[in-house]
């Protein structure tokens, strides 16, 4: 199996007079961790939701896991896992029931405990999902996104609002998922996240991809164009201090 697993060509979408996407194109290779990077309102979420089959583009094409999203959105949904930016789970369900329930939506019987263990939530299996902390809820939603053993995992701003420990824990989780063969496409507006986690990033602004490469290559390119800034060689930064004092261990309960 070769060729890109996600292929986006000249995607356009307008909401009334506002042009959210003005021709977005990119490819994601199998096994990559790929990020759409950009300020709020750049069109990241619109792009991702079109790929997930939740919105339809006005023009352009998108192929995910070999399937044309416009022609067979539910076929795409069968093959991908998603974590939406602002979504919630139904209330009064236990964490393990949420996982089982989403299994039902895919017509599968799933081992809920195994999935919860894979995100470090096995101890919370019997808790109501609305009682979980922010970081735990993000991990639960990743467990839920994995119930159908997806080929591509879409994460829309997965670490927004999390503390540094929870962010790092989530990065490890994403690396683990990629290591088991799942391609990951995420959006973020944190540069350090893109740099630490992603193989390649597409920088999106005003509905267009303005740059696309490996983070290191983008930086090198900028330097090659003669960019300089006053460099203060720091052996550590404030986040290092914070993590040194508070440790790397998760503590979201």
């Amino acid at each position: 199996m070769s060729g890109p697993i996600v292929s986006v060509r000249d995607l356009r979408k307008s909401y009334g007079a506002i042009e959210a996407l003005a021709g977005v194109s990119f490819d994601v290779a199998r096994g990559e961790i790929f990020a759409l990077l950009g300020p709020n309102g750049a069109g990241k979420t619109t792009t991702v939701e079109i790929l997930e089959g939740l919105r339809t583009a006005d023009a352009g094409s998108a192929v995910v896991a070999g399937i044309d999203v416009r022609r067979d959105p539910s076929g795409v949904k069968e093959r991908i896992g998603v974590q939406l930016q602002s979504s919630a789970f139904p209330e009064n369900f236990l964490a393990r029931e949420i996982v089982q329930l989403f299994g039902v939506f895919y017509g599968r019987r799933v081992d809920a405990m195994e999935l919860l263990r894979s995100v470090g939530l096995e101890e919370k299996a019997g808790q109501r999902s609305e009682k979980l902390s922010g970081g735990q809820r993000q991990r639960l939603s990743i467990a839920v996104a994995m119930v159908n053993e997806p080929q591509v995992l879409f994460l829309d701003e997965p670490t927004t609002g999390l503390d540094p420990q929870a962010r790092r824990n989530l990065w490890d989780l994403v690396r683990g998922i990629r290591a088991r063969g799942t391609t990951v496409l995420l959006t973020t507006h944190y540069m350090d996240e893109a740099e630490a986690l992603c193989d390649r990033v597409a920088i999106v602004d005003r509905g267009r991809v303005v740059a696309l490469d490996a983070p290191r290559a983008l930086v090198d390119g900028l330097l090659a164009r003669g960019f300089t800034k006053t460099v203060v060689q720091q052996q550590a930064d404030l986040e290092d201090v914070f993590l040194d004092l508070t440790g790397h261990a998760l503590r979201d309960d």
Partner: protein
Amino acid sequence: MGRVLRYTLFLSRAYLRDRTALFFGFFFPLLFMGLFGVLDLGAFGTVSLGIVDEAGNADSAAFRAALGRIETLRLTEGSRTDELTSLGKGERDLVVVIPGDFRIAPAAAGSSVPVLTLYESEARPEQANVGSAIITQAVDQMSFAVSRTQPIVALRREAVQGRRLSYVDFLTPGIVGMTIMQLGVSSVMFGFVVDRQRGVIRRIMATPIPRRSYMAAHVLHRLVVAILQVLILIGVAVLAFDVRIVGSMAAVLLLALLGSVLFLCVGFAVTAFVATENAAPAVMQLVTLPQLFLSGVFFSRDVVPAFLRPISDYLPLTFLNDALRQVAIAGASLGDVRGDLVGIVVWTAITFAIAVRFFRLE
């Protein structure tokens, strides 16, 4: 189909954990029934009779004593002005005035007989009627005793109905109808508005489950809850309040099911126009409150003023309550209530069409 049933099962299990929903769904209607059952608002009670004794002689005292022996009457005595004022205020059902020339003796031929004047309250006509019948009877007995004659015709009364129709008997079908309405409208409105606003539905729509399966599970779950609710309500009514369901229980349950479908449709039709959680309670009241009072839940629709009649006659809950009551307390068959069934079906069709046209999951 398996997917729909399994989803329904999950929804029902989660529902059992929802204390608020359980309270309003199950406990609240029972509370209502208990409260109104204890108050027994529909009970006939006693007739309050005011006596104005303008004779003040031994004969008038004997007449008053005779009335005092009648259990149904609650007597008070006072001046004409006081008693008539009380009557005006609704504190008396009847006032009888014993004239100054009152005596218990055969009248001389050609001379006039003393005239008892009876003032009746229009506020409680039933009590006034019963009271005046009692007084008429007392006067007749007195007359026969004095004239030493036997009544020409004897009247023997026999109770036809084995037991008196109590207020709870009347109330139970009303509470069942009310509960079906409340649950149907509120479960759709609060459930879907909240899930829509919080992005729950959007997340589920990112899985391959078809919209119709999603909807089917939610409707099925709510129908199951509604039927359970009706069974519990009727169970408590029968066991705790000695209510008797005269008609067929199967007919009652079928009506409950049709009513639930109707009010789920009403719920979806209305929810189509509710965008936020904040607007939901107001719209909920707007839809259910008029029906609570105009559709004969707690009281007979006879008390609905004439100008509201045209509305009251065609409210969805009116059809459901009327059919439930006819079957439950008058033993009517489904054929007897076909007019109500038509009303239910027409309302279901109208609200279903609105829901299909305007209701959106996202």
